[in-house]
């Protein structure tokens, strides 16, 4: 935190605009979690920008008192890339939905991850198109009946983590939309990571897809259905805290500590920093329990670093350093007064 950064509370980040999501929507929880994370990231308000696409989720920037742009459908990663490259000192956040980022914006989504531009992307995954009133999205499960799939969805879904890790994401985290405390922590971790940080929030849409994540996120089941990944710690879960993930025959399995000779030592220790994405890929795909928290946080040069390094190298060798000398260079000839 730079010395002259004011001490903020979450209230400093609330804008004067009335929040207009449906009552009970997880989007409120995400908003509050972000407002709580921002005072912890050590940035001045004026040095933060939120860029969104289109969707319910993408209304988000209006509600945060920083710089912001509510742009066009699917293009926020491209626009945010421009913001960050123009001013690398900014903390730039992308707000997007599952349709926004994985359907119309799929191309920008994979390329921003590939480039590792230093942005934080919060993907509000409600497995549905909210704003356009309930069509299936690229993350909707097969068979789900929606407005545009009255007989059941026939398009198999994308898996957000697999897609992201396949696109060489350096940071991937997943959080339930009903857990503000965990969300705030993950957002702060995401900001600390240099490179593109993708956070998938399992966001309940109370109107068009209510309860899709209940078997994972409901308070009654979450102890058994969520494993929290913490770098350097064993992947243990369960109401009794006695279950863990083990690697067996190239697959991740569940083992109970104390049964069949399994000890704490046998449980996988989470290594989020591992540059090799194979384990992160496997962890991200577990369905039950589902892995939450920071699954991947690997170091990789950012686009900004690569570009700056190149600029410095070019500067050293360049024959001219300003526009006029460039114009004056090359094969010139003089016509004199005759």
């Amino acid at each position, binding site marked *: 935190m730079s010395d002259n950064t004011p001490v903020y509370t979450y209230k400093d980040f609330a*804008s004067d*605009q009335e929040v207009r999501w449906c009552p009970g929507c997880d989007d409120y929880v995400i908003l509050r979690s972000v407002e709580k994370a921002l005072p912890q990231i050590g940035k*001045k*308000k*004026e*040095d*933060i*920008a*939120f*860029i969104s696409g*289109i969707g319910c989720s993408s209304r988000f*920037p*209006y509600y945060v*008192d*920083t*710089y*912001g*742009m*509510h*742009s*066009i459908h699917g*293009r926020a*990663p*491209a*626009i*945010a*890339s*421009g*913001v*960050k*490259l*123009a*001013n690398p*000192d*900014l903390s730039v956040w992308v707000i997007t939905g599952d349709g926004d980022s994985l359907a119309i914006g799929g*191309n*920008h989504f994979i*390329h921003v991850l590939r480039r590792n531009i230093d942005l934080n992307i919060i993907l509000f995954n409600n497995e549905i198109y909210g704003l356009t009133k309930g069509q299936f999205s690229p993350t909707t499960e097969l068979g789900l009946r929606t407005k545009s799939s009255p007989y059941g969805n026939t398009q198999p879904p994308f898996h957000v983590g697999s897609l992201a890790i396949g696109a060489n994401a350096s940071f991937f985290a997943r959080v339930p939309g009903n857990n503000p405390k965990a969300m705030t922590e993950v957002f702060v971790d995401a900001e600390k990571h240099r490179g593109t940080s993708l956070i998938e929030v399992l966001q309940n849409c109370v109107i068009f897809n209510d309860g899709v994540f209940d078997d994972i996120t409901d308070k009654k089941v979450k102890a058994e259905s969520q494993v929290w990944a913490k770098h350097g710690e064993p992947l243990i879960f369960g109401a009794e805290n006695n279950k863990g993930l083990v690697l067996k025959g190239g697959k991740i399995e569940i083992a109970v500590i104390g049964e069949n000779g399994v000890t704490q030592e046998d449980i996988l220790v989470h290594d989020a920093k591992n540059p090799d994405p194979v384990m992160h890929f496997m962890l991200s795909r577990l369905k039950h329990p589902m892995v939450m928290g920071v699954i991947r946080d690997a170091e990789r040069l950012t686009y900004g670093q690569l*570009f700056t390094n*190149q*600029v410095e190298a*070019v*500067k050293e060798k*360049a024959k001219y*350093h*300003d*526009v*006029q000398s*460039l*114009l*004056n260079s*090359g*094969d*010139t*000839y*003089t*016509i*004199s*007064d*005759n």
Partner: protein
Amino acid sequence: MDNPDTTVDKAGQPNNANALNQVVIRFVGDSGDGMQLTGTQFSDTSAMLGNDVSTFPNYPAEIRAPQGSVYGVSGFQVHIGQREIHTPGDEVDVLVTMNPAALKTNLESVPKGKTIIVDTDSFVKKNLIKAGYETNPLEDGSLESYKVIAAPITQLTKEAIFDLGLDTKSMNRSKNMFALGMVYWMFSRPMEHTLNFLKKKFAKKPLVVEANTRVIKAGYNYAETLELLPTAFTVLPAHMDPGTYRIVMGNTATAWGFLAAMHNSGLELFLGSYPITPASDILHELSKHIHMGIKVFQAEDEIAGIGSAIGASFAGDLAITTTSGPGLALKTEAAGLALMTELPIVIVNVQRGGPSTGLPTKTEQSDLLQALYGRNGDSPLVVIAASTPSNTFDYAYMASKIALEHMTPVILLTDGYLANGSEPWRIVDISTLPPIKPRFAEPNNPEWKPYQRDKSTLAREWAVPGMPGLEHRIGGLEKQDVTGNVSYDPKNHELMTRLRKEKVERVAEDIPPLKVEGAQEGDLLVVGWGGTYGSLFSAVKYLHETGHSIGLAHFNYINPMPKNTAEVFGKFKKIVVAELNTGQLQLVLQAKFPEYRFLKYNKIQGLPFTVLELSEKFKQLLSNQ
């Protein structure tokens, strides 16, 4: 000047002296034959002798088409003159052909009586068949009415360098230098520039320098001793304004105009772009200069190209995006966002033949309506068109200035002809260009509102991330007047729609009046825009000088138009709008100025107008008054 008025007569020979006013030479061969380089060397050398020059390359869309095929023919046309030159020339005075396919595809442009140089060694059965010749044109009499200079160029090239130990392929690569040597002698050009160029270019390959040097000299000497060649001609220096010059291509000049705007605005330059012919050279040029504070971002597609530019503009850079027609189509929705958020960006569209993929390597002016109206909603933005390869510099500069000072997206139209054409450019001292003053907001001003406007320009102020106290949100949803908050109020929408239109219209206060060249009033006004300037001007000038009442009004500023536009139209009895499309500007003018009748003259062949066809059309319009 001893014989300033000597011209080439019908037989391609000087009347009585060896000084020519102007000459058009076209070098053609296989795409691997180095014709672009040969032509560039000839034009550079001529420019350095003080000639005015204009060049145009003509290369195939295929990168490496099969050798000897008609679709693999690559050409480079050079027009040099003692007079001002405005086009690469309609008709070819000297055609240099390296193979039968090149002859076959280019003969049409050579009037009877002109000179053709051929490499006889390439006129073998295999190549004749590939070119579609049933008999050898060098032997069947079909070239009788031309002045054919048949030289065994391949053979002579090999003889000049046989002892250097090069393989056949490498030896063949030098034969373009033999042809260049011949043409240098023919037009009394010194070889120094090219010899120096070769030394520099192949500094690490002394053998290649030696080979090419020997071959060019061999060509020169061969021409001198050859009885077939007429005496050497010369083209005396043109009357050019004194100063330091260099030859520039349109795309390079475009890139440099943005660099000058970057420097004079004090901003950093951001380019977001996706490669597309014929615009990519702007991306290539700017990519070379990243150490001067230019951020070049090759995006995943055109949408991300303009998207990243909008982001960079939001963050305070001079942001541009470069493309050609199909790419402009993809940028449409985002251009609307820039317009709605009233952010400055420049979108360059280097037009090519359309629709769809169309004719990627050919020129056309058929994206005008797309630029003016191709967006959803009532969405006016500024549209500017450059008109010569070198003035793309000026219009790139002005596009940036208008965008930054009026807080609006600007579309700059150039085209394939301007982009790849080249001409001498007097190097500008950028400190003499009109200043650029971006409209930044005052940090910590509690009164500041995102959509409060300047009274005279209606431009809003630019508050960029990093400025304390001005945190705000903008976006594509309709804005409330002044506050910029989201608003669905019907009256506000009408107000904002009108404000956006009015804002663009007020740019007219900052642009020069429409100029008329030739007759200032009278019988026929020719109206054009963009890249056709050279040919329109040449035709109008010729007719005007030969006593016709004809003027030319050429538009560079299309939206808004200069304030005196209607006044200009009122001074002529007839108006004809000449365009390389089916009549797009004509349509706009007819709608805007219903009190006048706009005739049209159009060509849609992927080719520029020739001065000849224009002159004939205008004469016809002048005669049936």
